[in-house]
């Protein structure tokens, strides 16, 4: 696996090819938009009965990232659960896996628009958190410098090649890709996203390897 190292507000980070963010000097791992319990929420609301395996799959991937990095702190950047009821209804198996993952490290749940409110699963619950001048929150705030957020599920690709979930990085902020198994993506070409970023920034595509390309190159068709 080849990852991409970069600097934001004088701190050194690594964008991992699996879509997680690693801060080596703090031994801090950050993931965003897990959307655990999504299929349960859709079924509950009278929708279709999607394969109920996304929580298992997402936690399995998270386990792999944690095993690879052995962080002392994990930050989940919001929308960790598809809604608060989904958090309550999370299976015993998933609860057990989460408890095992949390053992021996700090675990911070940042609040997202899907899961605004405390959840009854270990770890600390916060609106946002600042570590060494870097702000971690769910939805980006334009004025903040040195900020890491999620929410938008960005994806990008080079013309002629299919789009992949990606990190978006410019001089002041970073947006993480969605980590959950049942999450779609918003194209970097969408005005909502392209308006947030300086086109001189980078899109770091996830996949087999983390591949950094100028955002401007992803805007071309």
């Amino acid at each position, binding site marked *: 696996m080849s990852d991409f190292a970069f600097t934001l507000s004088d701190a050194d980070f690594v964008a991992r090819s699996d879509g997680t963010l690693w801060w080596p000097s703090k031994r801090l791992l950050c993931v965003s938009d897990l959307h655990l319990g999504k299929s*349960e929420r859709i079924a*509950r609301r*009278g929708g*279709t*009965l999607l394969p109920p395996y996304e929580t298992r799959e997402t936690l399995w991937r998270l386990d792999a990232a944690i095993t690879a990095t052995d962080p002392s702190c994990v930050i989940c950047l919001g929308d960790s659960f598809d809604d608060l009821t989904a958090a309550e209804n999370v299976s015993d198996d998933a609860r057990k896996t989460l408890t095992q993952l949390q053992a021996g490290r700090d675990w911070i749940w940042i609040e997202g628009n899907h899961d605004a409110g405390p959840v009854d699963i270990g770890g600390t619950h916060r609106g946002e958190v600042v570590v060494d001048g870097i702000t971690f929150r769910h939805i980006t705030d334009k004025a903040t410098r040195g900020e890491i957020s999620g929410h938008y599920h960005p994806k990008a690709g080079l013309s002629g090649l299919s789009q992949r979930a990606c990190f978006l990085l410019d001089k002041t902020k970073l947006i993480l890709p969605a980590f959950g198994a049942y999450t*779609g993506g918003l194209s970097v070409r969408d005005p909502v996203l392209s308006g947030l970023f300086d086109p001189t920034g980078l899109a770091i595509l996830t996949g*087999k390897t983390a*591949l*950094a390309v100028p955002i401007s190159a992803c805007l071309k068709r």
Partner: protein
Amino acid sequence: MLDRSGEASLLLIAPTGGGKTLAGFLPSLVELSGGDHDGLHTLYVSPLKALAADIKRNLGTPISEMGLPIRVEDRTGDTSYTQKRRQRADPPHILLTTPESLALLVSYEDAPRIFKGVQRIIVDEIHALAESKRGDQLMLALSRIQAMSPDLRRVGLSATVEDPAAIAHGLAKHPDPCPVVLADPGPEPDISMLVTEEKPPWSGGGAKYSVPAVLDLVKQHKTTLIFHNTRAQAEIYFHNLWLANDDALPIGIHHGSLSRDQRAKVEAAMVRGDLRAIVCTGSLDLGIDWGDVDLVVQIGAPKNVKRLIQRIGRANHRYNAPSKAVLVPANRFEVVECVAALEAAKDHDLDGDPKGAGPRDVLCQHILITACAAPFDATELFQEVKTVGAYSTLSRAAFDDCLDFCATGGYALQAYDQWKRLKEVGGKWQLRDPRSAARIRMNIGTIFDIETLKVKFRRSPKTLGEVEESFAATLTKGDTFLIGGQIVRYEGLNQLVVEVSREKGRTPKVATFSGTKFATSTQLNQRILSMFSRDTWPALPAHTAEWLQLQREMSKLPQAGRIQVETFPQDGRENMVVYGFAGVNAHRTLGLILTQRMEAAGLNPLGFVVTDYALLIWGLTPVTDVAPLFDPENIRDGLETWLQGNAVMKRTFRIAATVAGLIERNSRQGRKSGRQATFSSDILYDTLAKYDPDHLMLRITREEAMRGLVDFGRIEDMLQRTKGQVDHIVVNRITPLAAPLFLEPGRIPVFGEGRDKLLQDKAAALMREAGLSDL
């Protein structure tokens, strides 16, 4: 027809235009003429909305002239909401509809009241319906209606087909018999191939070269239908016809992507006799009565002899005169194919593949539809489903699988006990949440439409037509494309509408409309191969005969019973051409299997492209030993692993899962809120493959793919026929027969080591250019 109107089931087979539709209605008119029947008497179902409208017109005249007390109405996706509501409250005597609209009617709580007393159902163009899941859906709906009105008699009307007994089996209430009435086939058609001064091009489907000659034909005839195999080709051809139409002959266009208004306008003009020609696609394939058509032109090879015969029948609706048709090959290879098709037509050698058992995804939808109407008893429904010919061999276990899927999702992990879709109450199954009925109804149907967007002029309410969403995504402001025969300029996307402005005199960037890619039939391919084995080709035009001769000199012509492979370098890539003659779908599968094996062998394949006759693979490393790639044992072994990861399977899964109700397609709300909310069905496929590989949807996907898009049966046939004998011809440059493949669109990339290497090079170059390489 009148003599046998008492039969419980009857199949009438007549060539296109034998007046069979009106014959089908005669008994209804007689029975209704007394004026003592209340409510619905006759249902008429056709695969096309246009056909229903046409029949309404044709029935209206005699009924009003004779002053019969009969009300005839149509009900399709185009019928207004108010009209539909009124029809439910007060059904007409004769209702003209489509399988989808009928399934929707069956899903309503008041269905028993609507269908009580219905006497006859006429299924028009049943040969066309029988080829798809639409036919299965219709027959399932019929089994429900028959239960509500046990005296229902069934009549099927079919064009000439290769296996009438199979159609009859599908029509009758199983195990009742279904007599077949064969009408006089009429005189032999007069078919020829257009030969022009200008030679057909090497590749492509446009046939632009034929425009002057076809215009001449139009001038010499009263009314001409100009058939195309795809909508995009019809658009381009129509545009080119108008550019050359110096005499301003009235020529119209008709295809499924045009707006309802536009189609209706063309249909009306045609009925009035105002048009000299119509450029059209399969949307006119079926028996709409256009009056005095005296010539059918088929642009592009017909791919299938049966379809050709059916299209030709569109010309000359008088029974005793021969139909006249001209085939126009779009490219050089199609010249060969057209001549082969002409020979097959002369020999009455119709082609077709036997149909499998009733598809289970359609059954799942039927179970949900049944639940929408009322709580049901599982055993009763099972017995009822088994009266449908296609489902007569269905086992109880297979039925229960489908029921379980509808109720709980059918997962190995029992996760939704609380949130079941169907629940059993007092021995009957019903919807857990009555609100889900609306969602189920919105997803009725088995036609898999690629998501499309409407196209409109800015500040105009009028819809010009529709384009695929994926096509719209490739447009940038200023791009031009053709729609409804005019060139328009893309201005932007506004609320899911593609906004355009008028544009004159520029070469358009062409819209890629959806269109099923039909594979050339096995029989036709075999005819082509046998033509190759002749010493000379007097039936072929000189330019084509010389091309084949040149191939014979530089390499070899492919032979029946052997697989011919050519390898040569071209444009800095190493190329391998496989002449499989197994049709596009099978070649695509073969391409995926071969490239996977090449990847494993370190041959760095980059991509491939397929046609009906061959497959071209290009890569970074030359293939020197081809025989192991074609070892039949290895191909079969590799199939299972390969099947799991490939895009064709994912597409098949998407279709089956949508039909079965796992994925909702008509969720406009979801689309409006942006793509962020939706995720690709590929993720569901991957998740199931990993955690629940035996799930019903995956089993259905595997079975369907083997028959349809994957078409592995044809590869098996090919391997069996050839016993794996591969003729490997190594040449130092591109061969005459291979050359057109290099111009073929629709290239499929292979995401392997070769492409990763290219992508990394490209990314590195971009970063260097942007001065970011040290970041």
